[in-house]
């Protein structure tokens, strides 16, 4: 791959911002087919930037971390889609296609600064969207059906622009930060490698905490023992273990119901 010019970077940022904006529509405005979830959007952006596995690794960590943050009522959770798209793009573009584990860890760390921005932007947008309902209810003689459709569908544009602008502003900063990080002393790389590994465990804890009231839930321990024995003792394939884990969960629920 040749040396990238400033124009190349600009094009990439615009491209990722546009794709990220479209993916972000799935989160609230259109469909909710879960394309926007980090474990899907991360590798998708990774693929577009030239490294699916880096995007998938980043997406997996962010998925676990935010999976139980639910959009219930007026609560607007941190935008894990922007975090995944941004971290995947920044680490792959900033480190030159093949980011190390430490770079991935560093880009995930930077998303901590992005989360409050996305929440604030979401809150502002959803407050302003009330104007759309007022516009739709106005009687300007043009027909309520037309006004309703125009007002409602323009919401898509606003949701897109919210993400697009965040990427345009923050993705270049992320790429610069990752480029800087590549040259830092080895100890910092070692720290971020461990940070990546441990963040996966924090993500698991975050998911488990909301799924059960008891940390020592027998279901967690059942999955743990089955997986440890099957993977370490028998060297079973992941799909085999997954099938047995699903069966075990089903049996346990049946037993509890009885």
């Amino acid at each position, binding site marked *: 791959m040749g040396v990238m010019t400033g124009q190349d970077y600009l094009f990439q940022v615009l491209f990722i911002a546009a794709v990220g904006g479209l993916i972000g529509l799935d989160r*609230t*405005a*259109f469909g909710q*087919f*879960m394309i926007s*979830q980090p474990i899907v959007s991360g590798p998708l952006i990774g693929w577009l930037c030239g490294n699916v596995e880096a995007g*998938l*690794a980043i*997406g*997996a960590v962010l*998925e*676990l*971390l935010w999976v139980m943050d*639910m*959009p219930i009522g007026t609560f607007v959770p941190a935008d894990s889609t922007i975090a995944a798209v941004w971290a995947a793009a920044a680490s792959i573009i900033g480190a030159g296609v093949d980011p190390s*584990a430490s770079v991935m860890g560093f880009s995930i760390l930077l998303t901590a600064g992005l989360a409050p921005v996305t929440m604030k932007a979401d809150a502002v947008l*959803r*407050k302003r*969207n009330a104007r*759309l309902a007022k516009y739709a209810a106005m009687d300007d003689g043009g027909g*309520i*059906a037309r006004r309703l459709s125009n*007002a*409602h*569908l*323009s919401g898509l544009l606003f*949701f897109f622009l919210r993400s697009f602008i965040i990427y345009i502003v923050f993705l270049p900063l992320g790429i610069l930060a990752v480029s800087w990080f590549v040259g830092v002393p080895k*100890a*910092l790389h*070692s*720290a971020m490698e*461990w940070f*990546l590994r*441990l*963040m996966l*465990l*924090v993500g*698991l*804890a*975050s998911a*488990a*905490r909301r*799924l*059960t009231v008891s*940390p020592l*839930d027998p279901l*967690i321990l059942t*999955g*743990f023992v*089955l*997986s*440890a024995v099957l993977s*370490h003792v028998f060297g079973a*394939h*992941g799909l085999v273990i*997954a099938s047995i*884990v699903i069966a075990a*969960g089903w049996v*346990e*629920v049946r037993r509890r119901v009885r």
Partner: protein
Amino acid sequence: MSGKKRTIGRADLLRVFLRSLLIQASWSFEMMQSLGFAYAMLPVLAKLYPDREELERRLKAHQAYFNTQPYLSAFILGAAVRLEEERAQGMRSDDDVAGMKESLMAPLGALGDSLFWAGLKPLAASLAVFLFLTGSVWAPLVYLVLYNVFHLFIRVGVLFFGYDSAGDAVLFVAKYNFTSVARLFKAIALCFVGAIIGAAAVWRPEFRMGIGLSGAATAMGSLVIVLATIALMRRGASPLALMLALSALCIAAATIGVI
């Protein structure tokens, strides 16, 4: 609908379904999904009410405050289509339609949140992360297929059922045992959380704890860290605060040469 002709066909309902995919396009704190609901109803209302003034009255009525779980809004939309069809034939009042929407949106919101956001989503996510960490790059595809086959089956099904049952909540609960399904999904998701930790020694290299421990010790160590983190979270530590604290800890440990 004894003695009355049905004017709404499957094609009309499918049109409503496609528009329901956009029910949150203009989501706001004040009115939530109100515009989205009216937008989804538009083609059916236009068919039922050729008189422009009547159409506008019904569209305004459907712009009242509305919020529920977006997938299960399809049930209320199906029911609203049926009630509007009957209203157009003089068999229902305005209050029947509004009352049905008001009475169903909160319970369906709670049911849907529990089934999809707190059940299916963590199940699909934990399965996908497990497959990825144990070596499959197809994990995102598994996630999408598992999630969407189930969710679309329910989403389309409840729209037609809402129309057929005219929004009968008792029939809905009897047909779709969402509480039990949600419990099953959460249980399997929890098993997968345990399974991911149990397989810690065979995780992808970038996540593996490379400190020379045996497989069993690595898995046990990971379990202890997860349990300790849960304890911290129960004491009020947010994921973001833990992220920052963990990074500081890692940097400090690397600086003094521990890791």
